[in-house]
């Protein structure tokens, strides 16, 4: 049979198996295991020839089929007991149940979906009170909690290696950058002045620039409690900044 079968058309090996059973007009509860195994293996082989990335799951099912086939070919021994189970039983059970959820998925697809088939009002009631940054609010659940923590850890990957690239990093440039940010934000936490993707050298230069700014009485440093966040703020009105802007050479960092 020259059916074009592609794995991506099937959501998994059970799906493919169901398709084969149906297309060979078999009864799920009475699968002709020899025939179906042959068909299944052929398709798997086709996929390999096409150099498709066959998921291990499809191969696992192939192994299961071959195993069932071999058990069915063995003569039934009398020793094992009267109620010898049909080797296909477990697979049949899985197939039947899978079929059920496949049907359910189809039903879900047909249910009227919000924002696809039915719509609710998008009206943001102004009478309902001011929405304090409501758009940022998220429903909470265990997943959201764990996800929040996970995201934070992902954003703070442990420092691994940094390729050392010699850059001419000028302290004066960094002083300007910090002052510019302080002009926009008024107050910066000590951590904020270091950007996350900074190299080691950049961190050092940023730190030196901060020290310079404090020494020049351009920036003040505050800390509420021991070990709490350190805050930087401008001590000089914006219009006076240009006059005290440091001469680059005078800093002597090169």
């Amino acid at each position, binding site marked *: 049979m020259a059916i074009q079968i592609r794995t991506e058309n099937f959501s998994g090996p059970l799906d493919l198996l169901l398709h084969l059973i149906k297309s060979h007009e078999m009864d799920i509860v009475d699968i002709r295991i020899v025939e179906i195994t042959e068909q299944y293996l052929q398709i798997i082989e086709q996929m390999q020839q096409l150099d498709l990335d066959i998921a291990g799951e499809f191969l696992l099912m192939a192994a299961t089929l071959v195993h069932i086939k071999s058990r069915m070919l063995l003569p039934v021994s009398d020793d094992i007991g009267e109620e010898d189970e049909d080797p296909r039983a477990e697979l*049949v059970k899985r197939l039947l149940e899978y079929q059920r959820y496949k049907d359910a998925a189809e039903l879900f697809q047909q249910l009227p979906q919000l924002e696809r088939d*039915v719509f609710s009002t998008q009206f943001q009631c102004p009478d309902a009170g001011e929405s304090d940054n409501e758009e940022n609010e998220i429903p909470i659940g265990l997943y959201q909690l764990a996800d929040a923590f996970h995201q934070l850890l992902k954003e703070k990957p442990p420092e691994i290696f940094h390729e050392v690239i010699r850059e001419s990093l000028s302290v004066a440039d960094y002083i300007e950058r910090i002052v510019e940010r302080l002009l926009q934000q008024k107050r910066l936490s000590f951590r904020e002045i270091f950007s996350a993707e900074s190299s080691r050298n950049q961190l050092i230069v940023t730190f030196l620039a901060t020290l310079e700014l404090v020494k020049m009485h351009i920036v003040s440093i505050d800390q509420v409690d021991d070990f709490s966040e350190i805050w930087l703020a401008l001590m000089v009105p914006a219009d006076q900044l240009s006059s005290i802007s440091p001469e680059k050479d005078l800093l002597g960092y090169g």
Partner: protein
Amino acid sequence: MDNLRQLVEAFIFAADSPLSLDRLSALIEEPKAKIRPIVEQLQQQYLASECGFYLAEVAGGYQFRTVVELAPWLRKLRKERAPRFSRAALETLAIIAYRQPATRADIEYLRGVDSGGVMKTLLDKNLLRILGKKDVPGRPLIYGTSRHFLELFGLRDLADLPTLKEFTALDPELAVADPLEPEADGAL
């Protein structure tokens, strides 16, 4: 009394998700017994008036929603097409909806494929939620569907899920697992 009706209508209209009777009762400061008949009356009224929307009962609450028949027209309002679910996502959702609480292993046994990625997408879309951990060795996480799932598919509660075809009497245990009463009416 007429004012109460007006208030119920306004609350349901202004809320950003379905309002339950409990919630309505707390907001309006009147007993549920007084509010329930008003809500029911409103439902009748909107149906009878052939209005463009009706008072739907979803996710344990009430919400105005447009009538289904107008869907092809109303889709023109939204620039982005409504996200469609992949077959893998719908299968996974179906398994969890009917079997909850379910572990990832339950789902993967039934589907025969790794389902972590699909589950994560469904969790991100707030259609699933983590219910806790199962009391078996390894204490795997157990999952269920969320309130948002009910809202999205317009279901009153989990008992409102479409009935699944009965299993052949192959396995009596499985037949017992069949949940779900048939839907009372096709109003949704």
